[in-house]
């Protein structure tokens, strides 16, 4: 269900959709020929997070932007539609903390497991340094103390 429509500053048309109909709308667009997931980004507007899908086509110059807002940081995964969504969603989960339901392997992609917080959030505390060391079994250990670890 489309809540809002408009044109972005760069001239691309955008639609804002209802969160519960996200996959349906993405699927609709894919069937209309938007078969190329150009970019998935997440923007933190403090009250809510907005996930932005830039969709294009491998045949022509079409482009459309689909936006969805979430306050509880849970969205449906679009991995059944595009293979590329797998890493996009892992990245957004890692840096913005949005969980994608139905993702086959939702774990951090850049930062080590155990990292505190999600850096791209506006409320992320940058004054606390985190150190990555190694545990005795070879896995990563994240702590606030540089001396920790094996």
């Amino acid at each position, binding site marked *: 269900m489309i809540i809002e429509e408009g044109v972005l500053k760069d001239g691309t048309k955008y639609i804002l959709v209802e969160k519960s109909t996200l996959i349906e709308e993405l699927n609709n667009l894919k069937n209309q020929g938007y078969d190329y997931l150009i*970019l998935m980004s997440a*923007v933190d507007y403090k009250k809510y997070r907005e996930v*932005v899908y830039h969709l294009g086509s491998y045949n022509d*110059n079409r482009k459309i932007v689909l936006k969805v807002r979430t306050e509880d940081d849970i969205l449906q995964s679009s991995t059944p539609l595009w*293979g590329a969504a797998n*890493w996009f969603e892992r990245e957004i989960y890692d840096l913005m903390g949005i969980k994608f339901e139905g993702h086959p392997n939702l774990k951090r992609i*850049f*930062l080590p497991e155990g990292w505190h917080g999600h850096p791209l959030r506006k409320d992320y505390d940058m004054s606390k340094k985190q150190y990555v060391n190694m545990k005795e079994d070879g896995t990563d250990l994240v702590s606030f103390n540089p001396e920790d670890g094996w």
Partner: protein
Amino acid sequence: MEEKILEVNFGPQHPSTHGVLRLKVKLNGETVLSAEPIIGYLHRNAEKLSEFNYYASNLIFMDRLDYVGNHNMELGYVLAVEKLAGIDVPERAIWLRMLFAELNRIASHLVWAGTMGLDLGMITPFFYAFRERERILQLFEMVSGARLTYNYISIGGVYNDLPNEFDEKFKEFVNDFPARLNELKSLFEKNEIFIQRMKGIGILPPEVAKSYSITGPVLRASGVNYDIRKISPYLYYDKVDFEIPISHGMDNYARFEVRFKEMEQSLKIAKQVYEKLPPGEYQNSLYKKSGLINIKGAGESYVRTESPRGEFGVYVVGDGSKKPYRVRIRSPAFHNLSAVNEMVKGLKIADLIATLSTLDPVFGEVDR
């Protein structure tokens, strides 16, 4: 004999990973069952850092993304900011941007050609490739003063006009390069071992490539005719004559062929651009020096460009202040790498290295 599955960590410190890539490889003897890329060893979070600086200051983070195709990285960001803030660019600057973007594409592909040779145990092509790349770097050094992080393409135009000695050096390079390129190519093409290791290895079907949002030479080697420069022309790509090389081989050899042909086309574009270069301003005078700090933008913009590795673009969200609210980078090598598992299943481990080298990942850009 009993079958045993062995899990091997390939990298992060390994000469053939082109940076700090770690692959968790499951092996049955010498056959690869699966390869899971583990990335993030070079992660600086350029996206977050960009939120704390003026629009113009962020250029240095873009330079450090794809550190062998810097001009193209700067271009993607600058175009997005200009669209957001509504900044006009003089005609000469647009042509100059195109000239350096194309020269950088050649330089980037030369690095790839050299390192691909190294990965496959051929040292000679590396020297041939880097000899030519050096001449391009000298051209870059002339205009920007730097050899690696140029900071040349700036908001509102370019940093500097061409110096007097550029003309002679550029023409010398353009004259010599086609023969040198053929020489380099023949080092690969006439090598039976090279062909054996490339043909039919690392198959990437077009449907898989499309699903994984793969772009650039990797996609075109799978038979999809898709190049942002043709599909959605930016700068003056619609005013020059060039072709998009494609190949239907889908394998490592196809990717090798496409990149070499692309270098020829880039040279063709660079030549035309240099002939068409109009006189005039190279920088919008409103945005010289201190004027750069006062750039403000509100709204959202994303401009698609074709970097040496595929579609590069920066999604910039502005809230009307002097600093961007959010900067999101689309890096092509990130996606090209994500399909590696699909390409290497069932290959030998030596072929995994060959396949990885034709994907040409640069980790400054993958990890951001």
